[in-house]
């Protein structure tokens, strides 16, 4: 027994000399389905890299964001790999908080990343985070209800059509609502949708001199249209509905149309979660003919905090989790429908994927239609479609979101909400020194 132990010890010492000592990676991530799957596949990674152990910190989005931001800003050093969005990447990269990803490996094929997504996680041509999955937004609608009403959804609908259809398809006594949209206050909740919608109406957050623009007619049209259509054709309680609440409504068959993240497409077509799985069609987010559709761009991405002592190992993990091989592993274990979408061109050329993902074409078209560098009809000083990539935006966006959510609830008029939004934004921008 002693000898065996001795031999094992000796062997492990020998092994440990050429290889590095065992490294533990702590990875912070969001609790969304694709990340949960990645967590479940950790074994595949450690099988190839026996000297690495992985610890997961899986949290809901808001908690994760506050956790990760506090830690990176105070240099707490609790995490080796962070899951962050396209909003954080440019801000943090400019602060020098992220390690540029230059050693992803020869077979990583950076050129295969969707150009819009790659741009969104790069600063000055350098990749600061690797996209894990990407999304835009689009219209999801009930083909059976449209057929019954004799309506036909164009592939690139206008707002006029969508609003008209929403009113026609509403049958409140039967519990069917023409359109479900986000209403819960938050920069990543109702403001993500409303900013994208405003872009399609020609509005913008700030002009070139960082003056807030809520006093413009474009914003007034946007908010009036939104409030009116939701009053007439939206579900009750809309002002506290976010992504999940609307998903539950849509899956229960209560909504004829829903405009939201493209990742929702795989949920609403999954018969285990949705009652209407075989009756869903997809279209681009609506426009008003001004050249911009009401769709956003977002990618959850993996990044390494600056100052990490394990950045080599962390980069190895990131390269694995965002590689083409990872896609294949998921496909082999869980089927093609479950691979993380929206990051690589090759996925959208893969016939096996296209066969099981009826939404693939429109997801790609929606991602292509969003341009974070030129998000609006008129020029703007910021980057980002449904947000402005400045540190102050989270706070401002959430406060403006509260005003708009009050307008939706009817406890405030549209004009009052816009005036409130304008003064809140001016106040914050002055404090931050953008305007005098």
């Amino acid at each position, binding site marked *: 027994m002693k000898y065996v132990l001795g031999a094992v010890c000796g062997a492990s010492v020998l092994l440990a000399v050429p290889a590095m000592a065992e490294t533990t990676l*702590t990875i*912070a991530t*969001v*609790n*969304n*389905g694709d990340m*949960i799957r990645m*967590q*479940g596949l950790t074994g595949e990674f450690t099988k190839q890299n026996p000297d690495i152990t992985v*610890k*997961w*910190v*899986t*949290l*809901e*989005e*808001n*908690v994760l964001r*506050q*956790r990760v931001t*506090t830690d990176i800003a*105070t*240099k*707490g*050093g*609790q*995490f080796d790999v962070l899951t962050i969005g396209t909003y954080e990447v440019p801000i943090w990269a400019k602060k020098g908080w992220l390690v540029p990803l230059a050693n992803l490996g020869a077979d990583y094929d950076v050129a295969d990343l969707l150009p819009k997504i790659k741009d969104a996680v790069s600063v000055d041509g350098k990749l600061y985070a690797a996209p894990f999955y990407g999304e835009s937004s689009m219209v999801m609608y009930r083909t059976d209800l449209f057929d019954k009403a004799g309506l036909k959804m164009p592939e690139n609908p206008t707002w006029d059509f969508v609003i008209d259809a929403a009113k026609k398809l509403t049958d409140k006594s039967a519990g069917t609502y023409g359109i479900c949209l986000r209403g819960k206050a938050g920069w990543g909740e109702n403001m993500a949708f409303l900013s994208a919608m405003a872009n399609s109406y020609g509005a913008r957050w700030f002009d070139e001199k960082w003056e807030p623009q809520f006093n413009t007619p474009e914003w007034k049209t946007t908010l009036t249209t939104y409030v009116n259509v939701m009053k007439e054709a939206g579900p009750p309680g809309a002002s506290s509905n976010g*992504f*999940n609440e609307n*998903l*539950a409504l849509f*899956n*229960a068959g209560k909504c004829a149309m829903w405009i939201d*993240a493209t*990742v*929702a497409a795989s*949920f609403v077509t999954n018969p*285990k*979660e*949705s*009652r209407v799985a075989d009756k869903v069609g997809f279209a681009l987010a609506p426009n008003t003919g001004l050249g911009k559709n009401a769709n956003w761009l977002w990618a959850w991405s993996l990044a390494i905090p600056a100052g990490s002592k394990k950045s080599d190992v962390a980069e190895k993990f990131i390269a694995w989790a965002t590689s083409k091989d990872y896609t294949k592993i998921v496909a082999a274990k869980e089927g093609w429908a479950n691979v993380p979408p929206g990051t690589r061109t090759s996925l959208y050329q893969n016939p096996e994927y296209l066969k099981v993902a009826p939404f693939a074409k429109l997801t790609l078209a929606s991602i292509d239609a969003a341009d974070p560098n030129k998000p609006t009809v008129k020029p703007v000083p910021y980057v980002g479609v449904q947000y402005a990539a400045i540190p102050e935006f989270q706070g401002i966006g959430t406060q403006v979101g509260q005003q708009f959510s009050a307008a939706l609830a009817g406890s405030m008029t549209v004009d009052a909400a816009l005036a409130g939004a304008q003064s809140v934004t001016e106040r914050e921008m002055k404090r931050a020194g953008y305007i005098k």
Partner: protein
Amino acid sequence: MARKETTQRVVISTIGAWFFGFLIFFPILWMVLASFKTELEAFAIPPSFLFFHWTTENYVTVQERSDYLHHAMNSIIIAGGSTLIALLIAIPAAWSMAFSPTKRTKDILLWMLSTKMMPPVGVLVPIYLIYKSFGLLDSRIGLVFILCLGNLPIVIWMLFTYFKEIPRDILEAARMDGATIGRELVYVLTPMAIPGLASTMLLNLILAWNEAFWTLNLATSDAAPLTTFIASYSSPEGLFWAKLSAASTLAIAPILVLGWFSQKQLVRGLTFGAVK
């Protein structure tokens, strides 16, 4: 003479108490039921009460995804540790305030309670920086320490009010017999205070078990208790209701079972000196 307990009275009060008890308990029951439904059924209207397809798939998923025992163990250590240490510090303090009060005793007591009224988020950054420099981030000791301090005012106050109820004559008698203060504390005071100690301990276990601000913000993985376990199931993209219900049921089960077995003590000692 016992009060008249007519059958009618028993029947009426039994029905009434069960009705309201059930009403109060219902949201929890509903959550436990939801944990045995599929995600789709959990949201169905009209809702199904008992006649749905019972499934344990949510529990299987939860177990596959996260190490429940690791989190539960951390919760037990953190909640238990912080409560015990708080009691060790609080017993002498409460004893001294109850039996040798000074003019300032009441002020000290109120001041202690007022430390509890500051919203913790206001001091997150200072605490985070302090913890970082002492290497206490993601350590059980760090969490035990902060939860202990957070609950200390309540513990001291509860014990103080309880100690005050203990008849002084007994203590005087003990002193006359020449008992030292140490003996007085161990042999006279403590046995009399057991119900109060027990309920103080239970109440603080519950508070520490459910504390979800410091545990979420200062623990990462090694020290992560059940609150972080819950946070990994709430509000992802997609339907989450049944899985969250299963995780929540698991998270409250230990403390609920403890409550079940100890409810007599909890009720007996939960007087805050309020009973004269």
